[in-house]
């Protein structure tokens, strides 16, 4: 009784402490881990994961997104859609300046769109339906589309459409502009110093356009190449922030349960990393639909989640993540069923050929996962050979279609028209690129549905289209979907408000503050 009472007191004290600590205090230094070291920080030129994570503090997009992916004000304070669904008007904040002191205006937006169309593969795709961008006055921007595009308001996040200073880039060769090494944005933190191989240092932007923010004086991003060393750095208090994916999965639980450590799986809603096995639909046993279905039935996703991923993640039920718009749980079909898998393998006429399985070369977890999948497939009577590669080799093999089954995971970007369709439509079959319809699936009805779904306006029109597509794709099983991945962000609890939106750490540290 006494024990419960004491525990109760401790708990309420802790709660009182937490409530007390809710007023942000300015000042302090954030020490975070960045892995691997980014090749550059100029977001329009480089879009890899670590670049987006650091540069999200330096650059900004017109919009941000909450965890339900509703747009929030960013560099645009308000926005509206015209009646025809083809005109979007953005009103910009009036007090934003670039880090060199020049004001941020509508001209910069128009220029950024032009620049990104040349340098940013994903932005180029997202902007295909944009016919013109105009600036009727310095704080208004109008996008005119050639046809309505349902997910249009979902393309303005900082990694997808970062704003770039016109006065620095106009008329130069973007790729070799020396300013790429000293990035200038409008964001809450400014680039200060980069000691290659050691750390990147950002400092507070004193003229940030949101009054009172940011709170921190500076951020150090430490480059620590070894996963075990990153875990030790957190354990010994040298760093306070481990962004998702910084440590191996088997360390996540241990580190998050350290005294004074907190963790969250939030902040990935916009990206929703979705993992699956690419099944080569062109040749070999995987060209057969019954065989592909067999693979889907053979996979023990719960085992993979519980053992390989240490309980992180959620079994995927189809091509859409459950956080993506128009996700339909009813389309789900494949659960772990080795008997059914065996029967389907037989039915497919499989003659015992060896199937080449390509793991993702992203560390221990993926290696173990490939071994588990190999075991699952062999239980269903499929002969499997694991093919070891490094990242470059993996890219080459998948983009040359030189595999039978390959692990992958891709971001979904909240809307089927942005992050899902690209893996299943015929027009995205192109040799030489690792992130399109690599499996070679081609189905005219699916092509048509994704095309229609993109231009249909309103949920009432879009939902039935995507419901039907999910059914078809699950039936055809062009790929074997695995897990909706989770990459928890581990911090010391004294770091507050680090993850506040659906973009998580990539949205920058503008709201973050440290209790001192």
């Amino acid at each position, binding site marked *: 009784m006494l024990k419960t009472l004491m525990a109760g007191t401790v708990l309420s004290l802790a709660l009182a402490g937490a409530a007390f600590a809710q007023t942000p205090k300015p000042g302090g230094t954030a020490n975070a881990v960045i892995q691997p070291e980014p090749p550059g920080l100029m977001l329009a030129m*480089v879009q890899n994961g670590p670049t987006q994570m650091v540069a999200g503090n330096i650059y900004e997009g017109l919009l941000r997104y909450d965890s339900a992916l509703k747009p929030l004000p960013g560099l645009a304070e308000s926005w509206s859609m015209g009646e025809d669904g083809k005109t979007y008007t953005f009103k910009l904040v009036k007090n934003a300046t670039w880090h060199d002191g020049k004001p941020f205006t509508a001209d910069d937006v128009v220029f950024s769109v032009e620049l990104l169309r040349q340098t940013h593969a994903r932005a180029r795709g997202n902007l295909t339906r944009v016919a013109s961008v105009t600036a009727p006055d310095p704080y208004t921007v109008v996008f005119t589309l050639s046809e309505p595009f349902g997910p249009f308001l979902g393309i303005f996040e900082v990694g997808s459409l970062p704003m770039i200073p016109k006065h620095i880039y106009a008329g130069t060769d973007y790729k070799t502009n020396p300013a790429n090494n000293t990035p200038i944005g409008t964001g809450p933190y400014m680039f200060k110093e980069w000691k290659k191989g050691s750390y990147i240092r950002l400092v507070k932007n004193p003229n940030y356009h949101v009054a009172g923010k940011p709170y921190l004086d500076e951020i150090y991003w430490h*480059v620590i190449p070894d996963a075990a060393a990153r875990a030790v750095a957190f354990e010994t208090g040298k760093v306070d922030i481990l962004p998702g994916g910084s440590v191996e999965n088997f360390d996540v639980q241990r580190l998050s349960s350290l005294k004074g450590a907190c963790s969250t799986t939030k902040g990935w809603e916009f990206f929703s990393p979705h993992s699956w096995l690419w099944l080569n639909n062109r040749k070999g046993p995987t060209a057969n639909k019954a065989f592909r279905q067999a693979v889907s039935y053979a996979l023990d996703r719960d085992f993979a989640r519980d053992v390989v991923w240490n309980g992180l993640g959620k079994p995927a039920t189809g091509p859409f993540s459950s956080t993506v718009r128009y996700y339909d749980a009813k389309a789900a079909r494949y659960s772990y069923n080795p008997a059914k898998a065996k029967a389907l393998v037989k039915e497919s006429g499989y003659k015992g050929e060896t199937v080449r399985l390509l793991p993702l070369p992203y560390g221990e977890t993926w290696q173990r996962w490939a071994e588990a999948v190999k075991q699952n497939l062999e239980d269903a009577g499929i002969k499997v050979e694991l093919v070891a590669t*490094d990242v470059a080799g993996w890219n080459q093999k998948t983009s040359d279609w030189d595999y039978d089954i390959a692990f992958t995971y891709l971001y979904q970007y909240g809307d089927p028209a942005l992050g899902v369709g690209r893996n299943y439509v015929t027009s995205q079959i192109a040799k030489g690129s690792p992130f399109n319809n690599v499996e070679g699936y081609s189905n005219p009805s699916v092509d048509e549905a994704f095309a229609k779904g993109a231009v249909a306006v309103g949920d009432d029109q879009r939902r039935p289209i995507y419901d039907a597509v999910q059914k078809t794709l699950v039936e055809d099983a062009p790929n074997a979907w695995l897990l909706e991945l989770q990459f928890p962000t581990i911090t010391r609890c004294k770091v507050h408000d680090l993850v506040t939106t659906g973009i998580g750490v990539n949205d920058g540290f503008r709201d973050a503050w440290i209790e001192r």
Partner: protein
Amino acid sequence: MAGFIARRIAKGIVVLLAIVVLNFFLIRLAPGDPALVMAGEAGAGDEAFIAQLREKFALDQPLPSQLGAYLRSMAGLDLGYSVRQQMPVATLIGERLPATLLLTGSAFAISLSLGVLLGALAARRSGTLADTAITGVALLFYATPLFWVSLMAILLFSVRLDWLPSFGFETVGAGYTGLSRALDIAHHLVLPAMTLGLFFMAVYVRMTRSSMLEVSRLDFVKTARAKGLTEGVIQRRHILRNALLPVVTLAGLQAGTLVGGAVLTETVFAWPGIGRLMYEALLQRDYNLLLGVFVISSAMVLVFNLVTDVVYRAVDPRIEVA
């Protein structure tokens, strides 16, 4: 002597050229190229994007003309440009070289001095408990994988005892200057230099010990004893000096790896050196940078071979340099 050195340098340049050409083709035999790696990391890449990157890396040129361009810039002592890092290769290597030299140099000094000292001690006390202890410990470090030793050292000295930092070159953001900065760096240096040095120390111990035991049985040692020289003088001037030749050979080999860095140690301790730079360049297929590191470290191997030959002569004047 001067003629000898000149001949060796001329030979060295030819060898270096062969190394460059060989490496140039070897690297390109690995699947994947830098454009694909960058597209892969971006998680998006249409053909236009990849083609753009290939053009940027000059990968759209035929191989012989790529090699020609590389050799031409090499001839002008220019190691080329790393498109990925947006910096000249020489700058990138220059930034990392001091850290590597500090680490491998310290490890070299530790392993050589401790190794010879302990080896000599073990030989002198051959058969005693001290000998058994020294050779036992040496064997242990020789046989244990380096990464394991590193991790255990981190666990003990950083996590449990909190005496030594577990990663980095210096305390980031502390703003130390002058002596306090040097001390801070030294503090960070202890763990990586020790773990890196232990393996080679073990080798020197065993080599010094066995070599000394062998020499001590020779006739001139007996003569020295008969002359009535003190044991210390016999050990130092007669036995050790003559026993050092194989140790010098080995030290020359280790010295050759000084610049190549220690990929493993630098990775585990987040030491910003050449080894890591090379490893990352390899994974990212950053051809120019990788070749640059190879060229510099090969050149150093050649230099240290030359130095070793000269040192041979100093240790044992009977050897003629030719």
